[in-house]
């Protein structure tokens, strides 16, 4: 018992166990989704996060210690984002030909998501700081946190809302769109990228490379658009809503 305890104390303090656990849990989550016929509700991010939160809570492991190990996986987000240029290049001729519908869908989807979040939270009695933290939740975390800070929201609250938005879009997005008879991969991917950034883009790559490329484009452009448009539009919308 003592020996086992000593081994645990040693391992829990090293990055190895948390890195290994991240990969093993993700592999298991992938297997769960595969056996479930690829159903989007069995999203591997959702399952992995849920399992890891339970394990960390039960073992009383602080998130910072877990991240010491998991950061090696997290770090790959940077090069993976750069790598999105390859599928984008593959769809380039279609993206150029469709620039006008893409721009309209981007502006409408982006503003609808941000402004409805702001307005609904306000109608339900949330504080202004909370409303401002919600508005940029559809864009990728570093951009969203920067916008929240500039608007006067709480960047750390925005960070959670961004993750929850991403998982929700990945879980519910293509089901909702199919119900609305949006059936082509380009539109599904683009909507996933506009509304739920990188996690939505990861889901889009599960559907097809076309969906993934359109999602990557939407994610990048929405980051740009939201960081420019939201600080300009929100004061105006706030006046309109009577704040």
């Amino acid at each position, binding site marked *: 018992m003592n020996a086992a305890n000593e081994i645990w104390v040693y391992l829990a303090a090293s990055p190895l166990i948390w890195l290994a656990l991240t990969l093993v849990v993700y592999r298991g989550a992938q297997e769960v989704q595969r056996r479930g016929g690829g159903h989007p509700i069995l999203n591997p991010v959702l399952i992995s996060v849920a399992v890891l939160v339970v394990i960390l809570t039960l073992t009383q492991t602080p998130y910072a210690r877990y991240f010491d190990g998991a950061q090696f996986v997290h770090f790959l987000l940077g090069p993976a*984002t750069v790598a999105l*240029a390859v599928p984008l290049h593959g769809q380039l001729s279609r993206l150029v030909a469709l620039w006008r519908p893409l721009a309209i869908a981007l502006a409408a989807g982006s503003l609808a998501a941000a402004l409805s979040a702001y307005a609904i939270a306000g109608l339900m009695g949330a504080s202004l700081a*909370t409303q401002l933290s919600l508005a940029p*939740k559809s864009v990728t975390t570093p951009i969203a946190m920067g916008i929240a800070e500039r608007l006067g929201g709480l960047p750390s609250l925005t*960070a959670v809302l961004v993750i929850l938005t991403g998982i929700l879009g990945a879980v519910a997005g293509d089901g909702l769109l199919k119900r609305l008879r*949006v059936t082509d991969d380009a539109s599904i991917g683009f909507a996933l990228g506009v509304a739920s950034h990188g996690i939505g883009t990861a889901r889009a790559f599960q559907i097809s490379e076309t969906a993934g490329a359109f999602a990557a484009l939407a994610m990048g452009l929405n*980051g*740009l658009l939201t960081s420019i448009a939201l600080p300009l539009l929100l004061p105006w919308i706030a006046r309109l809503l009577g704040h």
Partner: protein
Amino acid sequence: MISALALFLSLQLAGEVIRLALHLPVPGPVIGMVLLLAILILRGGPSVELRATSNGLLQHLSLLFVPAGTGVMLHMGRLGDEGVAILTALVISTLIGLAVAGLILHRLTRQANPDQTP
């Protein structure tokens, strides 16, 4: 694989330098993505190796969000008293964003290329 990773990391680094030098609101990796796209356009496409490494990374894009995603455990308490309002706004607005972007693009592209989209 190594030369592709070296390229991705160098372009990410270049993106960070550009972001810091020009005070851009866009993250370094996104600028790196634009730089790589420009290189691919100039070169006429990715090498076999570049394509394979890119596919390898992007196939498991979901995995890369797990460490940051697990961070929700730190801040769930922040939802606090306003939890219901926040989650309601989050769910409805995300579904609205998905529906608006998806429906508009689908309608507009179906008009433009009636034979391309069923």
